[in-house]
């Protein structure tokens, strides 16, 4: 096979890559240098959008820090609960298969539909949650109190995506070698010591992968916020992706939204690289 033939075989894959990955990114960069909105076309305005973003838009940065809080909190909770559930059904327990399937169900449901159901549950005057709590003299403002609304978003996200963490961690647990556990048992290690000194370190590589995958997904949180709170009350649950959506697809400031998207992409690449390195250092000491 000569040099040219190699490129002929490479071309279909390259074409798809350019079409679905490279072109959209280049287009977003070009769009971000324009003032494209409902009254302007794809004109060139240089770095004006970026200057506006860095000097005159605190709402973007507030939404970014809110997103960081929400994604870190949800992923940590998902990891802890997911690990606990995986550990539980890893062992021989009754109805093991039933529980394995049961714990996966939330992930198999459609997020938007489930969020509508959660919104109905948490509806403050018509929802069943407050109906039950009112018997104990409580009626929390699940969706209209700025702090509680964040907690509600976290609850829904954790419910929906813990099964994903559970699935990855269970697969990891099932693939662990048996010898270290046998050795620990011979040494008379208690279950807690066995978990701390054997299971957890062996699971570290898988844990890092699972956490990073979920952090990437959680940082794009949009549907839950859109359906549950619309970013409210006020802007208290507005995340970066929802804010970009408002600017781009609600207000039709496409050029500005593109500059925010690109900036957000760069920040995410950098921060996730650091997080991955940090986790590797922390969990894979040896």
């Amino acid at each position, binding site marked *: 096979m000569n040099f040219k033939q190699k490129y002929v075989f490479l071309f279909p894959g390259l074409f798809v890559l350019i079409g679905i990955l490279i072109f959209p990114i280049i287009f977003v960069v070009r769009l971000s240098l324009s003032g494209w*909105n*409902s*009254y302007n076309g794809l004109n060139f305005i240089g770095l004006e959008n970026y200057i506006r973003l860095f000097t005159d838009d605190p709402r973007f940065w507030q939404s970014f820090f809110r997103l960081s809080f929400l994604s870190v909190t949800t992923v940590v909770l998902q990891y802890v609960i997911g690990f606990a559930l995986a550990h539980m059904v890893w062992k021989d327990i009754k109805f093991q298969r039933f529980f394995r399937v049961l714990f996966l169900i939330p992930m198999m449901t459609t997020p938007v539909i489930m969020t509508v159901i959660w919104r109905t549950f948490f509806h403050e005057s018509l929802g069943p949650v407050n109906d039950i709590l009112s018997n104990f003299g409580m009626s929390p403002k699940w969706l209209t109190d700025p702090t509680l609304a964040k907690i509600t978003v976290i609850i829904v996200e954790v419910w929906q995506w813990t099964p994903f963490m559970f699935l990855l961690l269970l697969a990891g647990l099932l693939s662990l070698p048996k010898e270290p556990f046998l050795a620990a048992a011979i040494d008379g290690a208690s279950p807690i010591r066995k978990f701390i000194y054997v299971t957890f370190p062996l699971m570290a590589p898988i844990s890092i992968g699972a956490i990073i995958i979920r952090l990437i997904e959680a940082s794009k949180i949009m549907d839950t916020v859109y359906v549950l709170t619309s970013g*409210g*009350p*006020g802007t208290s649950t507005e995340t970066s992706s929802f804010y970009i959506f408002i600017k781009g697809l*609600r*207000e039709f400031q496409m050029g500005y939204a593109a500059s925010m998207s690109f900036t957000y992409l760069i920040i995410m690449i950098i921060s996730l690289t650091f997080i991955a390195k940090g986790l590797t250092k922390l969990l894979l000491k040896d």
Partner: protein
Amino acid sequence: MKIIKTCLSAVISSVLIFSPMAYADKWSDQFPHIKATGDIPGDCSYEEISKKNYKGKTLKINTHAVPVIGQPTALHAEQFAKLTGATVDVTHTPAGDLYAKAMVPFKAGQAPYDIVFGFSNFINDWRQYLAPVPKKYMNSTEMKDVTKSHVGVSSWDGTMYQYPVDGDRHYLKYRKDVIDNPEMQKKYKADTGKELKVPTTWKEYGEMAKYFNGWDWDGDGEKEYGSAEVMKKDDLMFAAFFSRSVAYAKNPRTPGGFFFDLETMKPNINNPGFVEALTDWVEATKYVPPGGINFGLGDEIGSFGGGQTLFSFSWDDAFIAAMQDDSPIKNKVGAAPLPGSDKVWNRVSGKWENKYNQAPYIVWGWAVGVAKKSKVQEMAFDYLCFFSNGANHQADLAIGNFGVNPFKNSDFDPNLYIDTMGWDPEIANSYTKTLKDMEKSKNRVFPLRVRGVFEFTSAVATGTSKALAGQLSPQEALDEVAKEWEAIVSRVGKKNVQEDYAVGVKMEDNKL
């Protein structure tokens, strides 16, 4: 005798064949939606549309989510398909996304939808992508019944781009069985020292709403609340805020702009009139039902229409829902003009004027247009003409959550509501009088219709929702909105916004 009998049967037969009653039997059997009236003759009646053949053609419509306007769109699409053989695809989109859903393909030079629904204030951004309504439809029987103001609302520079299907105003809705109840009046007087009556100021509205909040005042075993309002950020709440602002900020003695000073294009949105209205609105969060600050239009309709609150304002729909046959409060509600205020801000002198002020807010309503690039324009206009034909329109008017409200001259006849919908004559009269008086008022406010309108209204929604959530004080929130408005004006171009806004100001100042 035989001759008389023959003549009589001939007359009866001809009446049955040629009168609308005959069509009523024929069409209302197939389409129960129009059972109250049957088909009503006109250029786009069931009879006329059934003569069209659109077999093999597809009509694509983007409309609002179900139920408000989305449900009648889908229903009339189904009827239209049945009558003409056309295939009609209806896409439902949340209110906040209607603008962009049409604008993205418009900007890209495409027309994935033949018909696009939106709000009438989008006209300035959309009109370059919409086909003007052809003369044939302008001269139709249905169009001739549309009020002059709604023909104007659907047009720009004398050309109609939006097909009239709805006409909206904001007004006050109240529980007549409570406000007019002598026992309640006595109790209210004893407890507060004040008269219980239809509120004429927002302060009175607030006092009464607060008093009637959180207890079972209608004896149905459930708690009732003061007021149901559209407070959800992305669900037209900016319009609810303007309704509360007009009393304090629309001064008939200072023409030249409600939203901006037309000369300087400096925003008025953070002047003390608007701040007072927002302060009232923040106070209102204490007398709405639990979760009320997350109420969208659909929630407001369900809440007031279901008998949960004493008051509501904004669009007709909540009132119509309350007057539906299946409503627990049918014939127990009243309509009145929006409350006013005992003072009004004078933006020229920079002082409050201690004079009673009331200003109607003509919100207009749902608007719909046909894409200029649509390949089935005739079918699209036929559909819209059919949508608002006499029979469909009267049937739609009677359903609260359909979102179709009066915009035809014939809609202001109280007998329409008494005869076909079973309304109490006193309520029907007060309803039509309230609407008619708004048309006559000389102190009206019309929505902003300028380029980039969604940016302006979105800024108001964000700012006011921050105040409602307690994130900012009313003054801080509106200062933030004013700053954002200034930035938008500078981006769009001061002259452009000024040119567009001048049209609205002329209407407000009664010069058009």
